[in-house]
């Protein structure tokens, strides 16, 4: 499904797959966002501080990974409104990794003009660090 096709609610069908988005969880990118959301704790900003907490290195806040899923959803379905997002954090989202965000449409409500989606973030090994479901609504 191309991004332009995603604009039309009528063209969407359960089973549609969105274009995969690749995101580099660079240390500076994560640090800047952690500061923007007032979560500038060592584990999210600095490798050494994170190791001091027993972590393998700087990690990405769950609040950032869920926001990146949301970013992909609204980019995939421009003009739609995100009305619900449910996420489960399954693993440490280590900085320095380049992750993929993958999503599909699982249900379509013709009368309510909304779609349900599965969306997840996986690392290069294919481990799903964050999984989620979302509802997006379209204007009549």
């Amino acid at each position: 499904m191309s991004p332009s096709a995603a604009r039309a609610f009528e063209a969407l069908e359960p089973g549609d797959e969105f274009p995969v988005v690749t995101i580099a969880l660079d240390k500076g990118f994560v640090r800047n966002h952690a500061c923007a959301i007032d979560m500038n704790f060592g584990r999210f900003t600095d490798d050494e501080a994170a190791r001091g907490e027993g972590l393998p290195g700087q990690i990405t806040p769950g609040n950032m990974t869920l926001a990146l899923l949301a970013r992909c959803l609204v980019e995939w379905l421009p003009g739609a409104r995100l009305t619900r997002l449910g996420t489960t954090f399954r693993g440490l989202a280590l900085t320095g990794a380049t992750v993929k965000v993958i999503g599909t449409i699982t249900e379509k409500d013709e009368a309510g003009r909304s779609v349900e989606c599965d969306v997840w973030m996986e690392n290069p090994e294919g481990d799903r660090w964050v999984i989620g479901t979302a509802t997006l609504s379209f204007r009549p």
Partner: protein
Amino acid sequence: MSFADIPRSVLGTEYDSMSYPAVTAAELIEYARSLGVTDPIYLDEQAAKQGPHGGLVAFPTYVVKLRGGKMLPPEVAKEMSRDGFDAGKDIEFHAPIRPGDTLTASSTIREIYEKTGRSGSMYFVVFRTQIRNQRDEVVANVDSRLMQRGRKPQEQAR
């Protein structure tokens, strides 16, 4: 006392309410930009006037920044140890946030439950942060799930 002994009277009782200074366009833009958002309705006040909201709005997940003053009530917090972690969030998005809005975050405990897996007991606490604006409209309900591994018997005996 163990995690399982937390009094269920905490359920549904508001334990925190925090009001924030008026939201500024600059902080909404900073949030969106730091996430790599490119849609101008979240980044450009002039361009956003032509958008569906008639002006700049917060990127939806901005609400996770509004975590209130106290994550948990004391009777729950004291049972959480360092190995507890954020297991996920469920968010309902309602009214959009605009510059100038004054927001209040109120928190309640929604659920406390136990699951048993291969690695033993796990306890979950779900707390809801409800965010309302100055018109008392619900902006979002953010349900956060904290997971705590069950203590080993020798730890409970201490």
